[in-house]
């Protein structure tokens, strides 16, 4: 709630271009009253989660009030919070890195080169958007098993890269297309190969698009539930969402809702922080059609 009241105050203090009349002031008050109430409604579950993770008898060791006992129990839950956090991080980092490598090179190819099979590849990437994700996980399970990537974080990351490919490829292609050709032609005349031109000159020009692609890849892979649920079979490989759901189903003893709240906070905070930090890159991607992916 503090987040919002701070926001509201800042909004009210912002300078008005012209002094509003009485009717306008009433309308404005109604507007901010309604929208602030709605904002409280939308934020309150998140705020409650944070609050209940540090408040109550289970959080404070029985006495009531505040404490970090929920987090203490979470750290020791199952294989240990650190194991799950590391697994989630590994999958997210691999997905972000893999998506960036594949789609920066691919976007460059689509924007600057003619090559055989270009249209076919475009259609193939488009088809990934048309096919419902859960339906392709069962054959992927068999394929990953055949190549020895069952119960593997790398296997999950590969699947996540595939899911991210269509949006990211289009995003990077558009980014390269909007870079003036003169920029690399000068470098090519200076004796650069297309690869050194890409690495030394073009990458800097498409960095904003790369941030957008990376942000979407991170949010998708960090929060993904069904793919790791299917592909990861051992507790020591579980990601945060999978581990928390097994906490909720009481697989390792009684359901500990206090520790669960702590786990939700730990899982949500990286996403919330990254989003707040990189919001304008997110909105850019959204406008470019990320929602289709």
């Amino acid at each position, binding site marked *: 709630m503090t987040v919002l009241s701070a926001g509201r105050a800042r909004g009210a203090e912002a300078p008005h271009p012209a002094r509003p009349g009485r009717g306008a002031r009433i309308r404005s008050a109604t507007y901010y009253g309604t929208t602030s109430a709605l*904002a409280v409604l939308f934020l309150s579950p998140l705020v409650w989660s944070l609050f209940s993770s540090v408040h109550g008898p289970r959080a404070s060791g029985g006495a009531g009030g505040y404490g970090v006992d929920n987090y203490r129990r979470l750290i020791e839950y199952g294989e240990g919070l650190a194991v799950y956090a590391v697994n989630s991080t590994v999958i997210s980092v691999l997905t972000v890195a893999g998506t960036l490598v594949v789609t920066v090179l691919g976007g460059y190819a689509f924007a600057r080169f*003619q090559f055989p099979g270009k249209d076919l590849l475009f259609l193939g990437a488009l088809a990934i958007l048309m096919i*419902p994700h859960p339906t392709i996980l069962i*054959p992927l399970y068999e394929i990953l098993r055949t190549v020895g990537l069952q119960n593997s974080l790398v296997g999950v990351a590969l699947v996540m890269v595939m899911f991210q490919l269509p949006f990211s490829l289009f995003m990077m292609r558009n980014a390269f297309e909007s870079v003036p050709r003169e920029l690399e032609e000068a470098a090519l005349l200076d004796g650069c190969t297309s690869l050194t031109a890409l690495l030394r000159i073009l990458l800097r020009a498409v960095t904003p698009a790369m941030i957008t692609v990376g942000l979407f890849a991170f949010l998708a892979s960090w929060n993904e539930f069904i793919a790791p649920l299917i592909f990861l079979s051992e507790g020591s490989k579980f990601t945060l969402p999978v581990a928390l759901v097994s906490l909720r189903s009481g697989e390792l003893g009684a359901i500990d809702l206090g520790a669960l709240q702590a786990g939700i906070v730990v899982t949500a905070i990286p996403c919330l922080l990254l989003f707040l930090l990189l919001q304008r890159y997110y909105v850019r991607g959204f406008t470019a059609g990320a929602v289709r992916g």
Partner: protein
Amino acid sequence: MMSALLPGAPAASGSAPSRRRADPSARLRRRRSLVGLAYAAPAALVVVLLFAVPLLLSVWMSLNDWPLIGEPSFNAPANYQAIAGNDLFLSSIAFTLKYTVVVTILYFVTALGLALLVQQSRPGVGLLRTAFFLPAVVGLASASLLFYALYNNEFGPVDDVLRALGLVEGDVDFLGQPDNAFASTVVMVTWRFAGFNMLILLTGLQAISPDVYEAARMDGASWWQTLRSITLPLLRPTIALMLILSVTGSLLAFEPFYVLTAGGPSNSTVTMVMAMFREAFTLFDLGTAAALALVLLVVLVVLNVLQFWLVKRGDD
């Protein structure tokens, strides 16, 4: 792969004599196309190995008795015939359709309402947009877990709040009774996706020129008239996109019910993807699961095409 990037790589110049006679610009073009192919190769590998091959494999799996452990054997079309007798899947169709209709209407109403509220730029509106959108940043599984705790009678505050407002009396069984479990899940996903859908509509709203609104104001159009005859018609492609996303997303719902209700009580909230998941990883029958997946896939692709066609036809 990288050898193609080097000038005078043998693959580009030395392979065929006829090519040596071709003019240099053609040779250069050919080399450039090989370079392009090299850059596109990783993306092509991902599409082929992680998408096209699995897609074909799922067709083959659906034609086989394919246990999770053990040798597969051809049994077509037994997996497809078995769908007719798969009561859990059949009842999940009706349930998933009901869920899809209800949440799509709710998504549209909430998203349009929020988008209209934060459409104009004014002080603090960015913070409002962020506040409405933040639930969408939390993962769907985490959001479901959060509401699982919110709905808990001892731990969560929802029943206390409803009692204080005089809306209910005594304990409310939010998840243990079919209608309540459905409604509780619908409330959760509406909270989770309202801001997301708002942002979609907002991108469309902001593409409408302020001049159009100005003209309507000059003509003395009321708020309602402006909404009905200007905003909604101009917003149609964006609304269509939002509805398509909502329909496909809801037909494929998994996490909300898997986490919040676990399909219960007594299988009353099992979605189609959950039924498929159970076939594969509870009953260990990957062949039947692949058949269910393909049915789902065909239905969704047809639906997508149909929706695009409807939108296009309406434009003419």
